[in-house]
């Protein structure tokens, strides 16, 4: 009995002399939502394409739903995917575009209208794809990915172009699918959204894995931050010095000092600042979030 939806070992892709993906290893358990994050050009889409059999890996192995990625015909009928945004025929309607894919995959064509309604395109299904807004195109892409009633759903930036309501709907949809047993592997730049819905995280940087595992484990690895603001901006550097003298990493960011320290150290910092004649306007411990963690681990900010 296979209990991983995706399993990747030593997977690499080389273009000329550049390694787009470098010897990555990770697993995604069945029935989870797994966020796939990394800066632009970190190799997320290349990895997804290798998993879908669209490009051939240079080295390594991968398994999808227990089947090797060298044989995509064994698993793709159970996989839904939207890679690098929606791609459809502009002169066909949304309904016709889905019919093309339904016929091709041998899926029941009655599912097309149901899915259009599920993604909020029931009324516009007969309109040509070229008349759709970016958000509508994105919704059609999600509907296409759901055609096979997938066991594994792979989505690349599914919330691009969606309004806040649309983003919430997609979030709820993905959670529902996961609750129904579908494994969701989703990349997004909206890290706050991923943090809410993901059970697992795979983080890439320059083609290499920075972290892969349960999101709780990732957060537990991160030190909490104390954010301090002084009345006078000129005192910020002095607060940094106090923190560093006490052995804590500290930086000035957005007119406040971010000190990597347990929240128990906050009263100590308050006292030290008072003794140094600094009046603090704010002193708040902050638990790490995915966005902060991402920037710290990928070194993007």
């Amino acid at each position, binding site marked *: 009995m296979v209990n991983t939806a995706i399993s990747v070992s030593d997977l690499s892709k080389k273009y000329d002399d550049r390694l787009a993906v470098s010897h990555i290893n990770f697993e995604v358990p069945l029935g989870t939502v797994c966020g796939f994050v990394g800066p632009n050009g970190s190799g997320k889409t290349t990895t997804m394409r290798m998993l879908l059999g669209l490009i051939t890996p240079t080295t390594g192995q991968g398994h999808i739903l227990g089947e090797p990625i060298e044989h995509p015909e064994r698993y793709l009928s159970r996989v839904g995917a939207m890679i690098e945004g929606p*791609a459809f025929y502009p002169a*066909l309607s949304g309904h016709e575009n889905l019919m093309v894919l339904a016929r091709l995959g041998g899926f029941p064509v009655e599912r097309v209208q149901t899915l259009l309604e599920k993604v909020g395109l029931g009324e516009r299904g007969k309109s040509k794809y070229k008349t759709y807004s970016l958000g509508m195109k994105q919704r059609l892409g999600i509907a296409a990915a759901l055609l096979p009633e997938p066991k594994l759903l792979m989505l690349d930036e599914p919330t691009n172009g969606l309004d806040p309501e649309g983003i919430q709907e997609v979030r709820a949809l993905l959670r529902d699918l996961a609750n129904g047993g579908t494994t969701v592997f989703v990349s997004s730049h909206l890290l706050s959204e991923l943090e809410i819905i993901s059970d697992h995280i795979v983080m890439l940087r320059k083609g290499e894995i920075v972290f892969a595992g349960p999101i709780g484990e990732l957060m537990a690895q991160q030190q909490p931050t104390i954010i301090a603001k002084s009345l006078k901006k000129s005192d910020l550097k002095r607060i940094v010095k106090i923190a560093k003298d006490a052995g804590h990493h500290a930086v000035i960011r957005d007119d406040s000092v971010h000190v990597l320290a347990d929240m128990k150290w906050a009263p100590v910092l308050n006292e030290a600042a008072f003794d140094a004649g600094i009046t603090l306007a704010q002193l708040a411990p902050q638990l790490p979030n995915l966005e902060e963690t991402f920037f710290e681990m990928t070194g993007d900010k």
Partner: protein
Amino acid sequence: MFNVIRAELRKLRRPTLFFGTMGAVVFFSGLFSALLYLLIDSPQGNADRGQVISREVLALASGGVQGFANVGGFLGIIALCVFAAQTAQEYTYGTLRNLLVRQPSRMKILIGKLISMIIFALAMITISAIVSIGISAILAPTVDVSTDLWFSSAGIEYIYTTFVNVIISVVGFGIIGMVLGLLLRSPISAISFGVLWLLIVEILLIAVKNSLQLWLPGYQLSTIASGGTVDVTYSHALAVGGAYVAFGAIVASILFVRRDVAN
């Protein structure tokens, strides 16, 4: 395979493409056939490149399909454009990745696409034959061309033979279009290259060196449609044209199966 063909036919039957193409087929089939009779006494000739096709020739059993055979090369160019556009658009729209996720067998995609486009071409050729023979039958008596032999048993055989020859020619042109679409991955580039080659480069090359008409691919395929010419026999055109089409199809298939889909 059947699923691929059905999916592809859904794309091919969209009204703009289907009725636009069939409209062009009706117009040019009618024009080519009408000019054969309307210009029958013109000193500039009534057929391709100033050829004169006399009343006596048109009154033969093969006369009824003369216009249809003449339009065969033009149908080939239309097929080249449709096949090239339908193939290359998968790259420009990025839809190839959707197709391959739903049908991972690349050969099935390629063969299914080809079969569906051949079905489209058959519709095109049938309409062209009906329009061309119909207009010929209407105009022939107005310029004193006898149609008595056209629908005799020999005449019917000519209709069948020409129909098959035009199919071979048009499918050959279509496959070349498909190969160009796969190689160039852009409808505009594939159509421009194909049409420029067939309508300008080949004609110029033959004008400079007449013996090249034995070896240029477009000329061979047009010759197949007309059942052979004085200079190029039907069997020679079939062998050389077939070799070009087969070689191009093999190279393009290997590339399509092996190439990464990275767009």
